[in-house]
C-alpha cells in the first residue's frame, strides 16, 4: 500500500524507483513460489492422466471384466486383474494383522512401560528402521525368511492347521517357502516400524492430566491405556493404520522378491501368487505388444485408485485428530 502511495505522488519520491523494483521482484517471487506449489497438483494430475491414458487400450478391450477375470495369458493376449488384486489385498491384510497388534504393543511399551533412559534410544531406533528401503527387507525375505519358513514353519502348519477342516485349505500344498504367506509377513515386518512410530506419536498427544487423573482414581496401567489413551487417540490410531495400509498396498520390492509371481488365485496361503505392484515390477520391461503393456498400466491404475482412496481417508482422519489437538 505504501508503495502504491509513493508511486502516485507527482514529485518522484527519492526511493520510488527502488520501491517499484522491489514490488516487481516481490510479484515475481510470489509467482515462482505459487507456480511451484501448483506444480504439486499438476504432478498428481499428470500421474492420474498418464496412467489412465496408458491403461485405455486394455480397458477398452476388456471392459469392466478386466477387474473380475483371473486369466493372465500373454500368448493369447487375455488379461484380467483379479489375481493381482486378490494378492495385493490378501498380503496387505495379512501384513496389517501382524503389524497392527505388534506395533500397538511397541507403542504401549514405549509410552507406558519402558524405563525412561531407554525410551529415546528405542524410539529413535524404530524411526530409523522406518527409513530403511524396502529392497533390504526383500533381499532378507528371499535369503533368510523364505528358507526358514520352508524348512520349519510351513511343514508344521501343513501337518497341524492344514488338517483342520475348512480353514485347513488355507494351509495345504507343498511348502514352497516363497508365496503369499511369506510376502505378507515381510510386508508386516516392513510396515511395523512405521506403525509403531505413528502410534507412539499419537499416544503422546494425550494430555498428561487425563492420564494422571485416571491413575489417581486407581486405574491399572492397562486400564489407563484401554479406557483413556486409546479412546482419546482412536481416530489417530485408525488414521495411522490406514496410512500404513496405503504403504503396504503399494509396496513393491519387498513383495517382488518373495511372492513367486504366479497369476492365479490359490486357496492355500503357501502357494506362490502375485500382487499388482510385483506383477508390474516383474513383467513391465519384458512385456511385448500394446495390450500386454497396457494391461500392466491398467493394474497400475487400479493400484493408484486403491491407494489414493485409502490415503485420502487416512489423511482426513488424521486431520480430525490435529484439529482436536488444537494444532
Amino acid at each position: 500500500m505504501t508503495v502504491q502511495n509513493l508511486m502516485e505522488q507527482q514529485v518522484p519520491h527519492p526511493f520510488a524507483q527502488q520501491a517499484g523494483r522491489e514490488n516487481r521482484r516481490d510479484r515475481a517471487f510470489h509467482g515462482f513460489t505459487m507456480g511451484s506449489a501448483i506444480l504439486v497438483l499438476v504432478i498428481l494430475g499428470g500421474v492420474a492422466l498418464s496412467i489412465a491414458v496408458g491403461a485405455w487400450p486394455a480397458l477398452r478391450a476388456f471392459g469392466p471384466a478386466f477387474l473380475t477375470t483371473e486369466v493372465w495369458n500373454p500368448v493369447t493376449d487375455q488379461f484380467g486383474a483379479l489375481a493381482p488384486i486378490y494378492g495385493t489385498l490378501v498380503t496387505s491384510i495379512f501384513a496389517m494383522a501382524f503389524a497392527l497388534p505388534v506395533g500397538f504393543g511397541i507403542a504401549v511399551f514405549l509410552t507406558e512401560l519402558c524405563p525412561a533412559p531407554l525410551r529415546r534410544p528405542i524410539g529413535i531406533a524404530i524411526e530409523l528402521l522406518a527409513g530403511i528401503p524396502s529392497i533390504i527387507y526383500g533381499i532378507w525375505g528371499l535369503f533368510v525368511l523364505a528358507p526358514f519358513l520352508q524348512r520349519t514353519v510351513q511343514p508344521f502348519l501343513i501337518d497341524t492347521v492344514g488338517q483342520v477342516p475348512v480353514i485347513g485349505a488355507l494351509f495345504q500344498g507343498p511348502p514352497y517357502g516363497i508365496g503369499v504367506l511369506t510376502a505378507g509377513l515381510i510386508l508386516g515386518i516392513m510396515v511395523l516400524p512405521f506403525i509403531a512410530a505413528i502410534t507412539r506419536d499419537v499416544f503422546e498427544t494425550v494430555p498428561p492430566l487425563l492420564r494422571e487423573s485416571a491413575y489417581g482414581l486407581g486405574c491399572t496401567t492397562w486400564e489407563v491405556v484401554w479406557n483413556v489413551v486409546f479412546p482419546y487417540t482412536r481416530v489417530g490410531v485408525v488414521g495411522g493404520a490406514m496410512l500404513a495400509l496405503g504403504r503396504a498396498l503399494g509396496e513393491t520390492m519387498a513383495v517382488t522378491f518373495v511372492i513367486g509371481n504366479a497369476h492365479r488365485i490359490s486357496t492355500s496361503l503357501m502357494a506362490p501368487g502375485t500382487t499388482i505392484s510385483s506383477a508390474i515390477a516383474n513383467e513391465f520391461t519384458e512385456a511385448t505388444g500394446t495390450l500386454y503393456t497396457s494391461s500392466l498400466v491398467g493394474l497400475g491404475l487400479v493400484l493408484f485408485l486403491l491407494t489414493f482412496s485409502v490415503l485420502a481417508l487416512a489423511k482426513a482422519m488424521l486431520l480430525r485428530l490435529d484439529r482436536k489437538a488444537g494444532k
Partner: protein
Amino acid sequence: MNNGFYRRRKLVNRLALTLSMAAAGIGLLFLLLVLSTLVVRGLSGLTLDLVTRMTPPPGSEGGGLLNPIMGSILMTGIAMLLGTPVGILAGTWLAEYGRAGKLAGTIRFINDILLSAPSIIIGLFIYELMVLRMGHFSAWAGAVALAVIVVPVVVRTTEDMLRLVPDSLREAAAALGAARWRVITMVSYRAARTGLVTGALLAFARISGETAPLLFTALNNQFWSTNLNAPMANLPVTIFQFALSPYERWQALAWSGALLITVTILAVNIVARSLSRNKGNRT
C-alpha cells in the same frame, strides 16, 4: 467378592502388559535380525574392490559395484538438483502466502498423498511421460522419477520448518520496510536454514534406496556409462537383479550393495536428526 474383582483387574493388567512387552520384543527382534543378517552377509564384501571395480560378467569372480554406485550418485544428484528447489519454493508458498487458504489446503492434502503414493506408480508415470516419448530408457528419466519423489518430502519439511519461524521476526523485518520476498529470503530462510537442510537430507535418504521407480526408467546397465540419454547402472536395480541371479558372486555383491545403501541411509538420517535437534526443533 471385592477382593476377587481387584485380583482380576491386576491379572488382566499383568497379562496385557506382558503381551505388549512380548509384542515389542518380537518386533524389535525381527528388525534386529534383518540388520544383523545384512551386516554378517555384506561386511566381508566391503573392500576397496567394491568401489573401484566394475560389475563382473555372469558367473565370474571378482569385480565390484563401481558403475552402479556412480550411476546412483549421478541420478540421485540430478534428482536433488531438480526436486529440491521446486519443493522449497512450493513449501515457501504454503507457509508464507497460502497459509490457511483453500488452495493451500488442497495442495497440502495432495502433497501428503504424493508423499506416500506407491513409488512404482511414479515409475509408470515417468515411463509414459518420458520413456515412451523418447523411445528408450534413459538416466534422465530415472533422475526425473526420483525428483518427483523428492518434491513432496521437501515441500512438507520446508513448510513445517518455516511455520516454526515466529511471525514477530517477519513483522519486524516488514516494519523496517523490507519487501515480502526479502523478508522470506533474508529472514525466514535464515531462521529455518538447518530445517531446510534437514528436509533435503531426508529426501536424499528416501530416494537413495528407491528401486521401483528406476526399474523401467533408468533400467540398468552392465557397463560404465555417463551418457544421460542411455540406460544407466544404479545400485538398487543392480541389487535386485544380482540377488535373484543364480550366481554366488552376484548374490554376494547384492548383499554388500544392500549394506552400503543401508549404512548410507542410516548415516544421513542420523545427521539430519542431530542437525534438527541442535536447533531445538522437532522434525
